């Protein structure tokens, strides 16, 4: 595979951009589902990094790691959505600002 065609920095910039979008989403958005999606964005930013370095270093273990990470993310989303579903049933909302009773 031609490793010189796209420099590694481009991948890193892409993943960084994606990560920052994810962080911003987590910090700014009030809808819990969107927050969950933003977390997925951050995860995928990490996955891009893994794959990019895997190719760059000519080592397959990075890609294996990325696959594991994707599987984990799927499980996590299933869990997260289940929690949100129950939350919605109980509280009739998915706005995180309304869910602030666990405090001082």
């Amino acid at each position, binding site marked *: 595979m031609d490793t010189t065609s796209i420099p590694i920095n481009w991948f890193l910039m892409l993943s960084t951009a994606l990560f920052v979008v994810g*962080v911003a989403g*987590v*910090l*700014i958005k009030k809808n819990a589902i969107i*927050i969950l999606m933003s977390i997925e964005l951050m995860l995928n930013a990490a996955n891009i990094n893994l794959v990019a370095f895997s190719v760059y270093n000519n080592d397959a273990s990075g890609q294996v790691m990325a696959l594991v990470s994707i599987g984990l993310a799927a499980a996590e989303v299933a869990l997260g959505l289940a929690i949100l579903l129950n939350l919605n049933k109980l509280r009739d909302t998915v706005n*995180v*600002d309304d*869910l*602030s*009773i*666990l*405090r*001082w």
Partner: protein
Amino acid sequence: MDFTSLYEVAWLVPLLPLISFLIVGFFGKRFKDKGGMVAIGLVGAAMVLSLIIAYGALTGNLPSEGYFETSIEWVVLGSGFAFELGIYIDTLTAVMLIVVSFVATLVVIYSIGYMHEEGERRRRYFTEISLFVGVMLGLVLANNFLELFIFWELVGLCSYLLIGFWFERPSAASAAKKAFLVTRIGDVMFMIGLIIVFNLFGSLTYTDVFNEVAMANVDQTWLMWGLFFMFGGAIGKSAQFPLHDWLPDAMEGPTTVSALIHAATMVKAGVYLVARMFPLLVFNGAVNGPNVLIFIACIGGVTAFIAATMALNSPNIKRVLAYSTISQLGYMFLALGTGGYLLSQGEIESGGLGYSAGMFHLMNHAFFKALLFLSAGAVIHLVATEEMRKMGGLRKYMPITSLVMLIGALSIAGIPPFSGFWSKDEILASVFEAGSMNGVFMLLYVLGIATAFMTAFYMFRMWFMTFTGPEGEATKTVAERSSHGHDAHEHKKGRFSEHTPKVMTVPLILLAVLAIFSGMAALFFFGDTFYGVVYFDEPNHETALELLESIFTHALTYLSILVAVAGILLAYFAYYKNKIDVKAIANKPAVKPLYDMLLARYGFTKGYNWIGEKAVYGFSLVLDKFDRFIIDGLINGIGKVCMKTGKGLRKVQTGFVQTYAGVVVGGAVVMMLLMYLLMTVLGVDLSP
């Protein structure tokens, strides 16, 4: 006969009563008499061994240095120095062994009768009394001051336990506490003295401390203070002025315990201590001036006088005896102080006589005071009261007891040939001798003579009030009991026979024999006189006849006999013939305040109570305030600061998920920046 192998096992002497302490303490309940026989057997065995050892030591079978010593290492300190546990036997030890073991054995035997009605409690009684005897014997046999101090404290503990034997009576409980606390003042002084002496000599073993070279090498001013404080211990233990006030209260214990405390254990420990540290006192007195010795003599003389005055009008039979003990102990200290003073001034002969007379008086006093106390115990046992005004006319019901008590009274009054005369007369003679060198002793001699007069008076006042005259209300109940035969074991007895059980009268008779003869025996039957056997520096080589001659050619001897007889006659006319109306004299406006002051013990009781209730309690209140406001304030303050901080900080927990996430992100960023800075500072190359 070779006694050395016997001296080697002298450690058995204190051990045997201590074994009895363990046996009776743990298994006493299984014995039918609650351990009384065990205590008698083991204390008696200790007595037999003590008497043999004492016989050996007093008949000159000691090693050539004049003492026998053996020890084991007890606590080894890092520098190779070791505290020892050991035994030290010389003639002084021997006299104490005789006194303690003999009187203690008789008291334990007597207790079988006296404590008969106590039931299950006899186990506790015999346990404690075994311990008491054991530790006192240990104190006497110790070969260093530290060991002595340990036993000294144990003696204090035992007296606390036994004075408070009837602890359910508040007066007994508080008397026990008082005895413990007041003697504690002395004990602390004793400890300070020991620390000073240890710092000076680097050792507390007698043989190291009494070494002439070592004594010459230490700072004499410091040594003086050390001795002064050690004598403070003796003041507390021997109930000397101003720490005398616990002893009259200690009468709350069983009379047998009083007898033991007064005659053999506890109070004699203080006199023994002073006699034991005599080499130091005399050496220091000779080099540094005899301040401590004069102090000892003054305390002794003043105590003898003050205690005797308090005994003059006390209505309680045991109190009278308690005051007389304090007074007689004062005589002993007077003798020791005077003897030491004369010795330190180079008067070897008369000074040695003073020392020996003090120890002689200790021995004689042990016998006649045990006799008096046990007789008083028999009286109290019969009439169930200690008030002499309720007694009277008891001679009919207890002829033996009244006779032996008369012997005791004659002995303490100093009538020849009873034992008290021989020692008391020598004490006064040596004080008079010192009087020609120092005016203070002349004053002390006057006090001593006045005390002798009062002693004779109050002892016979007690005897007449108890045994003669009209029958008091308590006596009448006895008369009723014996004529109606209420008590099964008294029912056969006639009106004029002894109402005291044999187990109590036999010890009394034995002691009475000693009260008559111990003085003469020590002068005549030792082969040498007491002064030739128990001596300091040089033995007095006068034979018994020469001694007798010197006693009876001295005009002062007749003076002391005269005042004693005068005291007895005064008591006879006032309380037997009723020629003198005592009550009228006591109620005269000029006498009344004095009379009341004596009953109030010169206000010492009040004073101590004031110290306890006002001074110490006030100080405690201050401490309480300090504790509450300063200490507690500090602790609570720290708590409050934590609470406040926590209250403030918990606002951080907003409950908003995004705040937390923001903090996490911010934290991560900060950490990365820090990392970057650190790497830059350390010079790590970050380029790919």
